[in-house]
């Protein structure tokens, strides 16, 4: 199966691991990620104001390209996923917004949110299936206690993201189980790490990140996985004393396609 793929800015720079392992693992699972040509940065955060148009156009372009290829659009980074899915939702449901955007783009045919947007995790769950993933695992991570860190972007707003229950999510936990490890449930998993406010108030980010790590550890976690480069940055920078890794890295390890050499 082929899907369109939107990597986003960070995955081509500071989070190359997240990107590389996503590619490799997808191949093993029979999915080819076709990178959107000339993709532009999603903007990092979705501006909720109804009259903010221009900053959302890059997402619309990516969505349109996937639509033209009749493919679903897959993202890995939580932020890209959040922005693109919210933009797509607005294109579907906010007529003023979609009309303005379509006029602005002034290309043939309007776009009204037809493309299906999947987060990589959703792709694993809904397109691959965790059962099938389990079959493909060659290095089961047995006995490892892993805490899934959702942060804020993956699940909320739940009415738009429609990924999982926003307060009691199971998708990453089931992912961890499929890899043979043991998920650790902890309440702070869907609380914010401090996000972009770390440029403004590093101490706020520190407080939040520490609360997340402390809670995960208290519930027995030996490792935290995340889908978001900013989450990883905040947790690590603020002194996480257990490993914080991208979920794709863990996936690649379990599927046996992780290379030991650091590129």
């Amino acid at each position: 199966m082929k899907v369109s793929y939107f990597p986003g800015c960070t995955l081509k720079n500071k989070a190359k691991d997240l990107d590389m392992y996503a590619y490799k693992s997808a191949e093993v699972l029979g999915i080819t990620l076709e990178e959107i040509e000339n993709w532009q940065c999603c903007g990092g955060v979705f501006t909720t104001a109804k009259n903010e148009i221009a900053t959302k156009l890059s997402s619309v372009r990516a969505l349109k390209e996937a639509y033209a290829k009749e493919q679903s659009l897959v993202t890995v980074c939580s932020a890209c996923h959040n922005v693109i899915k919210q933009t797509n939702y607005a294109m579907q449901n906010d007529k003023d917004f979609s009309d303005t955007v379509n006029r602005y783009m002034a290309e043939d045919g309007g776009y009204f949110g037809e493309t299906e947007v999947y987060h990589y995790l959703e792709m694993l769950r809904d397109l691959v299936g965790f059962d099938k993933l389990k079959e493909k695992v060659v290095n089961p991570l047995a006995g490892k206690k892993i805490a899934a860190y959702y942060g804020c972007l993956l699940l909320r707003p739940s009415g738009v993201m429609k990924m999982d229950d926003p307060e009691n999510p199971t998708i990453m936990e089931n992912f961890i189980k499929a890899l043979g490890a043991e998920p650790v449930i902890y309440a702070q998993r869907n609380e914010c790490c401090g996000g972009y406010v770390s440029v403004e108030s590093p101490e706020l980010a520190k407080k939040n990140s520490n609360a997340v790590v402390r809670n995960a550890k208290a519930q027995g976690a030996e490792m935290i996985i995340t889908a978001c480069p900013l989450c990883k940055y905040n947790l690590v920078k603020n002194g996480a004393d257990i490993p914080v890794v991208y979920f794709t890295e863990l996936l690649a390890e379990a599927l046996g396609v992780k290379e030991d050499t650091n590129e």
Partner: protein
Amino acid sequence: MNNQYLREELIRQSGVNPKKCMKCGKCSATCPAYDEMEYHPHQFVSMVESGDIEPLLQSESLYKCLSCFACIERCPRGVEPAKLVEAVRLSAIRKQGENRMTANDVPALLDEDTPQQLLVSAFRKYSK
């Protein structure tokens, strides 16, 4: 500044109906940036509704909201306070020369691991 006009503009642009608020305070209870804020999420809702917007425009609280959407998700009345905070922030930074963050500020923020996402997001939130 005509408060009534600004109030309506904020409500229109955020899509939030502050009248739905039943003043339970769950938004402020769930806010992870609460202690950093001078005005808290529930105050944004009630102050916008009453047209008392000027103090909000001046407040540092605008730049402390994480846009984590916890208040939006957990509000029992579907009020969506974070969207209102965003609308007020945009009214503040959309004014000429009122960008909170400029490109000149960036080098000082960088460290070896700073993800691009951080800068992009901060720029989106703190400047036009």
